[in-house]
């Protein structure tokens, strides 16, 4: 509200009060900029700058619960890389991120190309698939629990129904199927996004390209291969980046479905840091694993960061 005083000299005042030359008390650009930015910078400082620096600092300390922090050098990191649980979480993250991204984008892209052939009549179907992306991950987790339940879960029910009862099992309780099961549920939530970004890309392809191709006698299959597929790449690229970044950070669905188990077979690095810091109270150790996660995320986003930095004028 302090701003109101400065604005009074502006165009809101009566015209007679408004001198042609800048005579009234007016903020310079610099002052105004800092005034407008200050509240944002406070939030940003507390919840971005401070946490990043502090996480890196704490990763060099040994902190257990409320005990005083003890400087430990690279101790946390050397423990991390000899901790089979962490190494497994690295592997799980890799499998999770790559398969979730490949499947989400492939399915979404495929559906987008099909939908683009008849955009008007597939609108309802697109919204149905996209809606899954709008469901809270916590709620998706609950839905998929109902599908994977060993007793009367939908999946086992279907398998028994089609006479494959030999395949029924506790999907989330079996360490060899749990990760795959969670990934399927995750892909279900994510496909809507690549569907929409790819669809938008296809829609922006100039229509005369198609006309020209058809006049030249091209078949729908070759139109798809030579026009739609290459020209929808911008949407595919966006989808790949979003899916990769999101899946590296994934937490909610794992928390709901398996809590990282059984025997930590679904524990990603993002979940490992939660377990070590919030359940086992090893804050320094958790911080070190967060730093590794941070490095992974930064590496994946280098192209985006470079592009944003170059575009920032």
């Amino acid at each position, binding site marked *: 509200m302090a701003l109101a005083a400065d604005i009074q000299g502006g165009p809101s005042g009566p015209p007679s009060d408004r001198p042609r030359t800048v005579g009234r008390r007016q903020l310079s*650009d610099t002052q105004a900029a800092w005034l407008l930015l200050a509240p944002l910078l406070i939030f940003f400082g507390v919840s971005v700058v401070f946490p990043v620096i*502090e996480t890196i600092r704490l990763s060099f300390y040994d902190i257990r619960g409320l005990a005083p922090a003890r400087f430990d050098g690279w101790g946390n990191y050397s423990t991390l890389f000899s901790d089979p649980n962490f190494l497994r979480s690295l592997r799980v993250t890799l499998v999770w991120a790559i398969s979730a991204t490949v499947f989400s984008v492939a399915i979404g892209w495929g559906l987008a190309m099909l939908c683009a052939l008849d955009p008007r009549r597939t609108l309802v179907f697109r919204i149905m698939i*996209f809606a899954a992306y709008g469901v*809270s991950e916590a*709620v998706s987790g*609950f839905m998929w629990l109902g*599908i994977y339940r060993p007793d009367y879960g939908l999946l086992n029910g279907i398998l028994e129904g089609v006479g494959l009862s030999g395949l029924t099992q506790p999907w989330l309780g079996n360490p060899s199927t749990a990760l795959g099961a969670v990934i399927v549920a995750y892909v279900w939530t994510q496909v809507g996004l690549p569907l929409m970004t790819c669809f938008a890309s296809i829609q922006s392809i100039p229509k005369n390209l198609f006309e020209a191709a058809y006049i030249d006698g091209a078949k729908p299959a070759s139109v798809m291969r030579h026009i739609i597929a290459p020209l929808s790449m911008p949407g595919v690229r966006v989808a790949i980046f979003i899916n990769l*970044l999101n899946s590296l950070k994934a937490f909610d669905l794992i928390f709901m479905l398996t809590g990282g188990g059984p025997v930590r077979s679904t524990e990603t690095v993002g979940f490992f840091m939660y377990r070590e810091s919030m359940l086992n109270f090893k804050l320094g150790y958790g911080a070190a694993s967060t730093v590794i996660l941070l490095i992974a995320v930064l590496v994946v986003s280098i192209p*985006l960061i470079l592009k944003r*930095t170059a575009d920032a004028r």
Partner: protein
Amino acid sequence: MIGRTPPWILPLVGLIALVWIVPIVGLVVTSLRPISEVILGWWSLDEFTLTLDAWIVVWDKYPLAYAFWISCKIAIISTVIPMLLAPAAAYAFHFLKFRFRRLLLILIINAFVLPNQVVIIPLFRLWRDLGMIDNIWSVIIPFAGLSFAWAVFLVKNYLEDFPTELIEAAQIDACGPLARFFYIVLPNALTPIAAVGILQFMWTWNGLLLPVVFLRDELPLPALLARIQGVYDRNWDQVAVAAIITTIVPLIVFVVFQRFFTAGAQTRTGGKE
């Protein structure tokens, strides 16, 4: 319409879409059938009764109404903050000259890559020292702070096409930098501001990690759902009601404003709309 549409497209896509919403249908059906039937599978047809029992008893069973209120408070406050501050910052970055402008801009818009996990340990220690654990501001502050990366980017992108003539004309009329923001830019930037609000509302309403870590009793809906489905495993019908209540508001917002999400997703990664 791209050329001739093969006749199998519509049934195929329709079938996939139907399979896709099976989990959602299952959730709704589960909430409407008595537990004795749900326990045999929500799709079983041996007996079929529809009842609103779960919808009635659930309110006494779990603190759903309270969690709904907490969710509203957290989502609305964490949404309003970036809706106010991101346009101000985007204006400053785009139209004003000051030292460190480019450095700050690059820092802020690239922070979008940061995972939520990065705030957990430092803020957990900070909130604990300040006695702010279980205070909704412990969640709102990082929700707001982490939003600026994409929110500023989204509004600034929009301002790049803003007619500079308007700004110059106001400047000639002795309009100061603040007045130019409040009277010229702000009223004409309501589209990206609305997009920021819708996206942020969804993400903060659905957020699970930060509430689980920083809140104990003041739980918003997703965190409450996570807790009750762990504790009361058997009341599937009632947990289903809780799940529907958790997701109904964001789902409606989402379906109504779906085009904002594609746009928002692209600004999150740097593609331009």
